[in-house]
């Protein structure tokens, strides 16, 4: 094969490789999205992005996920790493990164006020700023082994109107659901988590 041919092939491969994820993101906006498993199923399918979120904070007993995206909302990329997982949702009305969801082991809620939680087994703390336009605020869900922050940055004239809709889109899934899934998937040959061993 000529050098030009090899270069073309390499270019095509590169475009195909990078185009795969790119086109999915534009088309379906769900690639890499930690989607909530269907609650009514006994052994629901768990997507790998949600498993990655679980791995980022192994102590978290609950994990944030996206139930379904309303019209006008799109998923931004997932950034999962040691001790933290983060993803954002964009809105055609409220702008990019209208809400950013972060899972960590713990978070600072000293500036927030505790309110009645809408998620069972969690303590909720709210903190809101008062920008001239739109809405800025943080919501914290604190629970055993983890803390989830919803950071709202809503642009446009609707102010906090979108907050309830966002709350509907986002949900928590019990870690035990993921554990069961991994056990079933591997036919009991490995688990989602492992107990710390000596040397760690």
């Amino acid at each position, binding site marked *: 094969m000529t050098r030009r041919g090899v270069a073309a092939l390499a270019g095509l491969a590169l475009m195909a490789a990078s185009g795969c994820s790119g086109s*999915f993101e534009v088309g379906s906006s769900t690639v890499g999205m930690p989607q909530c498993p269907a609650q009514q199923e006994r052994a629901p399918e768990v997507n790998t992005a949600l498993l990655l979120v679980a791995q980022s904070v192994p102590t978290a007993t609950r994990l944030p996920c996206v139930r379904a995206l309303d019209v006008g909302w799109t998923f931004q990329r997932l950034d999962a790493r040691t001790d933290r997982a983060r993803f954002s949702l964009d809105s055609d009305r409220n702008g990019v990164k209208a809400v950013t969801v972060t899972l960590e082991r713990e978070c600072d809620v000293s500036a927030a006020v505790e309110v009645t939680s809408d998620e069972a087994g969690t303590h909720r703390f709210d903190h809101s700023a008062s920008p001239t336009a739109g809405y800025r605020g943080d919501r914290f869900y604190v629970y055993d082994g983890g803390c989830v922050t919803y950071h709202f940055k809503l642009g446009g004239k609707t102010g906090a109107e979108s907050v309830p809709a966002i709350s509907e889109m986002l949900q928590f899934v019990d870690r035990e659901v993921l554990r069961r899934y991994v056990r079933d998937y591997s036919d009991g040959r490995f688990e989602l988590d492992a107990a710390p*061993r000596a040397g760690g």
Partner: protein
Amino acid sequence: MTTGYAVDPARSIPGAHSRRRPSGEPPPLPHRINTSGRWWLAFASMVVVSWILVATIERTAVALDVADHAVLERIASIRTPWLTRLMKVIGLAATGWALQILWLANLVVLLIWRRWRHLIVWIGVGIVVDSIAGSIAGSMQRPRPMGVEILGDWSGFAMPSVPMAILAAFSVNTLYANVPAGHHRQVGKLIVGGLLAAVAASRLYLAQDAPSDVLFGAVIGVTVSLVAFRLFASNEVFPVSYHRGRAAHLPIDGIRLAAIERALKDQLGMIAVEVKPFGLEGSGGSTPLRIRVQGEPDCYVFGKLYAATHLRADRWYKLGRTLLYGRLEDEKPFNAVRRLVQYEDYVLRLLGEAGLPVPRPLGIVELTPEREYLLVMEFFDGAREIGEVEIDDTIIDEGLLVIRRMWQAGLAHRDIKPANLLVKDGHLRVIDSAFAQVRPSPWRQAVDLANMMLVLALRSDARRVYDRTRLQFDEKEIAEAFAATRGLTMPSQLRRMLRAQGHDVHAEFLKLLPYQLPPVRIQRWSVRRAGLTLVALAVASVALAMALQLLTSNPI
């Protein structure tokens, strides 16, 4: 004046017989990426097949997960506090800041030694590996190892291991861009192999990646780097060297030397006794060689080795001239090495037929089809550069007759400078007609005349040259020549030698003219020139932005 080819061709060497290469026989210098490159390409193909299987057949994915888990569990069973500390230290080699240091160190070395080609390939490999590994990891979406405690830091999906892919690519890049081929590079390969194995062991021990993630990442990184360097910066054409010199010159040793000797024998029936680079400092567009050919007695021929690197040099040269001069030098570059060589061979024959004292072309030798050719011609043995000998009226007249004959034949040499005008046995010889042009612009022909007069005046004086010129050219032609010629239109060697004269020869000629014509404007804009200038500025800006990005960003 001696007209036409100066001496008998070397073709008359007794016992010279050429041989046609049969179909299927490899050329003298085959273009290849070496055996190891093929192996790595095969590994990479297997990796791609594995990805397709894992992505499409769930049972395969489960089997791979189970196998990976079994290995990691065995490794985790030997964890001890001291081994964990050691593995964390080893694993630092695949962290963002370590890779950034490696890249910056390479950048400094490659800039100091001006290995632009290696630098471009280095950057290209980095971008391609980062994009491919990142994109595939995003598409495969494999979680980190499960069922084993992860002791090290990680980020994003696991397959392929992006840190391993980038470390492998950067390590191989470093080796191929900085270590000369041979024993040192072989040792370097062992070191790189050892480094990758140690980091892989660390990542498995710390359970940051599964075995298949590490393997696939390393294969992608090594393969892309290896193939890129062997295709775009091969040892044969772009050897790693710590000697200053023109990058356009190819090394004449080892495989290439043997290929030249074999090709000369097979294709021209010449038995080369000695092949040596000759006059490298005066040549940027090819690798000039002096070849001693067996005979009774032995004689010399001159060879100009052309490769893809010279073709690119020709393109850059012509682009530069278009940007500098505009429409006056507006010409299309060659698009193949074969055509470049064919053109010079053709021009030599054309100049010879026009009665110019140029070397007789003896044939074109193919080393690698479409990539490397040797143009063989007569060698002016014992000739000296015109700047080194006394100039008499014969030489002055012959020099001026060269211009007159080129004008008559509708040709321009375009590179009239001392290095290209030789004197042998009291007669002038003209060499290096690579830039010659058929039906040039009248401006370019006029420049040839002025440059010839300036060269001839270097070792004589302006008055004498002017008087001899008047015998062959009228006042108007000479006035036009000096209206066309100034600074940029002279070859740099001529400009340098004129400056060294201590007096302004150009001005002396102007004083001798009975009248002066207004200077010919050489800055002429065309749509093409304007477009090329804009594109050049845009490319420079993008390159600068990319360079800044690469300098400051974390590779992982």
